[in-house]
C-alpha cells in the first residue's frame, strides 16, 4: 500500500439549502500517491465543487481535506497551492495581460516575488532557467509556436493546455484536472490522452474529471462516481463497469451499446 497523498474526509458543502456535495453523511475518498483517479458523474453531480473544496476556492460546510498529512481546514487557496496542490478549472482561466510564456512562468515558485529580490535584482539569474523550463513544458503541451502570443488568440483547447502547463511548471505533488479534454479538437484528443498517460507514467498523482468514459476507464487506476454530490461508487475501472448502480444511474444504455 502506498500512502494516501490526498484524503477527503466526510466533506459536505451546502449552498443555502442545496446539498451540493456530500449529502448528509459527507463525501469521503482518498488518493494514494502515484494514482490516476478518475472522477465521474453527470452534470451537476458536484465534481467541480469537490475540486473547489479540495483546492480551497470553497470551504467545506463540514468535514476536512488532508493533503500530504496536512489538514487544509484553515489554509487559504494560495497556501494549499504552495503545499503542492495543482488544479485547472473547468472554464479555463488564463491571465489575459500576460503572454503565453509569461502565463507559464508566473506559475513557478515565488522566490522572485519578494520586494527584497526586486530590490537586489537577485531574480535575474533564475529568470533564464525559469524561461527554459516554461518553454519545455509548453513544448510538452504543444504550444511551442504560441509562446509569444497573447492568450486572446488561443483556442479553447489551447487555453486548457496552457493552464495545465502553468501547473506543471510548479511541479505539484498532485494535479487535479477539470475536464481537460472538453472543447479540445477531436484530432488532438488522442494526443492529449497520451499526454495524460505519460504524466501518470512519470509517477504523478492525478485526479481527472472526464466525460469521455471510454477513455477514462481505460487509463485510470481507480474511479470515483458521484451522483447528486454523493459517492455512488468507488473502485477500479473493472469494478465500476460491472457495478449495477453505476450502470443504472450513469453508464446506462450508452455503455451497454
Amino acid at each position, binding site marked *: 500500500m502506498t500512502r494516501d497523498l490526498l484524503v477527503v474526509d466526510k466533506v459536505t458543502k451546502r449552498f443555502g439549502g442545496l446539498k451540493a456535495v456530500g449529502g448528509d453523511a459527507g463525501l469521503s475518498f482518498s488518493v494514494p500517491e502515484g494514482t490516476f483517479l478518475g472522477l465521474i458523474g453527470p452534470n451537476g453531480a458536484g465534481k467541480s465543487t469537490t475540486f473547489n473544496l479540495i483546492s480551497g*476556492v470553497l470551504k467545506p460546510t463540514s468535514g476536512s481535506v488532508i493533503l500530504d498529512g496536512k489538514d487544509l481546514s484553515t489554509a487559504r*487557496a*494560495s497556501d494549499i*497551492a504552495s503545499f503542492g496542490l495543482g488544479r485547472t478549472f473547468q472554464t479555463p*482561466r488564463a*491571465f489575459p495581460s*500576460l503572454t503565453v510564456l509569461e502565463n507559464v512562468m508566473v506559475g513557478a515558485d515565488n522566490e*522572485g*516575488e519578494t520586494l527584497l529580490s526586486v530590490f537586489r535584482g537577485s531574480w535575474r539569474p533564475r529568470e533564464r532557467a525559469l524561461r527554459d523550463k516554461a518553454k519545455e513544458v509548453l513544448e510538452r503541451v504543444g504550444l511551442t509556436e504560441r509562446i509569444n502570443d497573447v492568450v486572446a488568440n488561443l483556442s479553447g483547447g489551447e487555453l486548457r493546455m496552457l493552464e495545465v502547463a502553468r501547473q506543471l511548471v*510548479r511541479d505539484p505533488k498532485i494535479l487535479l484536472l477539470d475536464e481537460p479534454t472538453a472543447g479540445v479538437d477531436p484530432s488532438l484528443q488522442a494526443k492529449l490522452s497520451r499526454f495524460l498517460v505519460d504524466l501518470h507514467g512519470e509517477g504523478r498523482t492525478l485526479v481527472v474529471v472526464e466525460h469521455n468514459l471510454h477513455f477514462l476507464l481505460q487509463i485510470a487506476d481507480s474511479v470515483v462516481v458521484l451522483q447528486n454530490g454523493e459517492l455512488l461508487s468507488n473502485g477500479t475501472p473493472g469494478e465500476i463497469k460491472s457495478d449495477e448502480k453505476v450502470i443504472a444511474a450513469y453508464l446506462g444504455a450508452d455503455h451497454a451499446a
Partner: protein
Amino acid sequence: MNTLAQTALTIVMFGSLFSVLTLSLNLQYARGGMINFGTVAYFAAGAYAYAIVTQEPPHGLDQYLVGLDAPWWAGFIAAGIAAMAFAILTGWPTLRLRGEYLALTTFAFAEMLSSLLVNERRIGNGTVGLANVERPDANILGLSENIVYAGAAFLLMLATAYAFSRLLASPYGRAIDAVRDDEVAAQAIGKDIARLRFQVFVLSSIPIGFAGALYAMITTLVNPNLFSAEVTFFVWIALVLGGERTILGAVVGTMALVGFQEAIRAIPFESVRAAEIAASAEDIVTGILFIVILRWQPFAAFARRRQPA
C-alpha cells in the same frame, strides 16, 4: 526670465510633481487593480509631516503642538514614512474590498483626514494651516529657486518611474498582473493575493509622501484647502489621459493636463471680468478635452508606441 520660460518651468515643476502621484496611481490601479479615490490623503500626510518635522516649536498665536525644527531631509524622510503609515492604516482594513467598495472607503478615509486637519488645530492650525514652511536654501547652487525645485521634482519623478519600472519588469510585476487579471487563478498557483495587494498599495504611497514634502517646500504653505478631493480627481484624469498601464503614459498625461492649465493661466487678461470668463472657460474646455481625449486616446497611443512592453 520671460513669461514663456517661466510657464515652461512651472509646467515641468508641477507636471513632474503630480506625475509622481499619477505613477503611483498607475501602479495601484492599472497594474494592481486597486481603485484609490483618496490619493490626496497620502499627499497631504507627506506635506504635513514635512511641515511639522521642519517647523519651529509653536509660539504666539500658533495652535499646533509639535514643531521639531529638524533639517529638511529629516522632514523629507518623515513625509515618506507618514504616507506609508497612512497607507498601512487605511490599506489593512480595506484591501479585501473589491472595486468600487475600495474606491468609496479610500475616498472616505481621505475625507476623514481632511476633516481631522480642519478640526484638530493642534496638528496644523486647522484651516489656517502652516505658513512659512521651512525649505533648504536653494541659492547655494547659484540657480533660481524655481529651477532648483523644478529639477528636484523632475528627479523625484525619474526616481519613482525607475523604481516602479524595475518592480514591474520583475517576477513581482508578473505576479501583480496575474493577481489583477484573475485572483482565483492566481491563488491556484500559490500567489498570496492579500500580501501582494497590500505591498503594492503601501509601496506606491511612499513616493506620494515625498511629493507632498516637495509640494510643501514649493508652496511654503500647507492647509486643508490645498488637499481637497480635487487633487485626487486631477490625478485620475491625468492617468486616464495618458492611457492606463504604461509609465510613460502616466507622465505624458500629467504633463499635458498641467501644461494645459498653466497655458490658460499664463494668458494675460485685461480685466477681472475677462479672467473670470477664462476661469470658467478652463473648466468647460477641460471637460471637452477630456471627452475628446478619452475618445481618441492620442497620448495612450503615443505611450504605447514608445514602450512596447
